[in-house]
């Protein structure tokens, strides 16, 4: 094994699970995720000389993974899925709390209804988000990346990251809440019986 390979194995490979999880959420398919992960790591290894040791290896791998995914995705299909979020970037600052939570607070202030939602349904709801929203929500809420790291990765300003996070989370919260109401895990608060 070359020295280059040894340092790659030491710094990059520990992120295999995280990159796989990310690829799984990007593509929605275990088969495609595996291909994506393999391409990501091989590409990262070939570009290993460009990586600055000690910097955020995980975000660098995520960036490669997402770029590969977007390229494949642009080549094929699903153009309708991109988010036209430059039309009206909803300023999170304008908001005064989620109106849905104001209503839920009366019946379930701890949010116990979330616990009753099975993983498959949560994943289905995440996968139903447009890619631009899905990526920032997963990177922030699951992988714990900072706004700046996500901004560097996705190539949009921090303000756009915040606005996508805001809208993506709201959309997802609404979907999970509607599901929980439908399943009878929580009493509806929007005039539903």
């Amino acid at each position: 094994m070359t020295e280059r390979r040894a340092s790659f194995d030491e710094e990059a490979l520990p992120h295999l699970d995280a990159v796989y999880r990310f690829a799984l959420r990007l593509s929605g398919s275990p088969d495609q995720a595996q291909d994506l992960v393999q391409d990501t790591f091989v590409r990262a290894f070939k570009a290993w000389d460009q990586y600055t040791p000690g910097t955020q290896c995980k975000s660098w791998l995520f960036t490669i993974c997402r770029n590969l995914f977007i390229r494949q995705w642009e080549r094929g299909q699903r153009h309708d899925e991109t988010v036209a979020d430059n039309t009206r970037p909803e300023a999170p600052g304008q908001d005064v709390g989620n109106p849905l939570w104001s209503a839920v607070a009366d019946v379930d202030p701890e949010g116990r209804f979330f616990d009753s939602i099975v993983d498959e349904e949560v994943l289905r709801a995440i996968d139903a988000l447009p890619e631009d929203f899905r990526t920032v929500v997963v990177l922030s809420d699951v992988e714990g990346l900072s706004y700046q790291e996500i901004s560097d990765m996705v190539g949009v300003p921090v303000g756009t990251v915040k606005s996508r996070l805001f809208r993506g989370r709201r959309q997802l919260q609404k979907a999970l809440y509607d599901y929980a109401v439908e399943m009878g895990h929580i009493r509806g608060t929007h005039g539903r019986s």
Partner: protein
Amino acid sequence: MAGRDMSQEMISCREALRFLYEFLDGELEGAPNEQVRAHFDVCQRCYPHLKLEASFRAVLQRACGTPCAPPELKSRLLAALAEADKG
């Protein structure tokens, strides 16, 4: 007004909710972070917002955090890397 301790000032509900995501995302520091925390500590009306957002996050982590890379992917990848290392 110089020299007063900003962290002791109570901010409004509107203000606290405006910074809710930044607070939860660990993007606030120093006095603003303390002010938001102090508000949620005492405000019964806003506290559920914090709690519900935290539960939402927990459910995403539970659902997404479990899968590990399958062993066949790992062996496939190691073979591909060994190949790339040669050339």
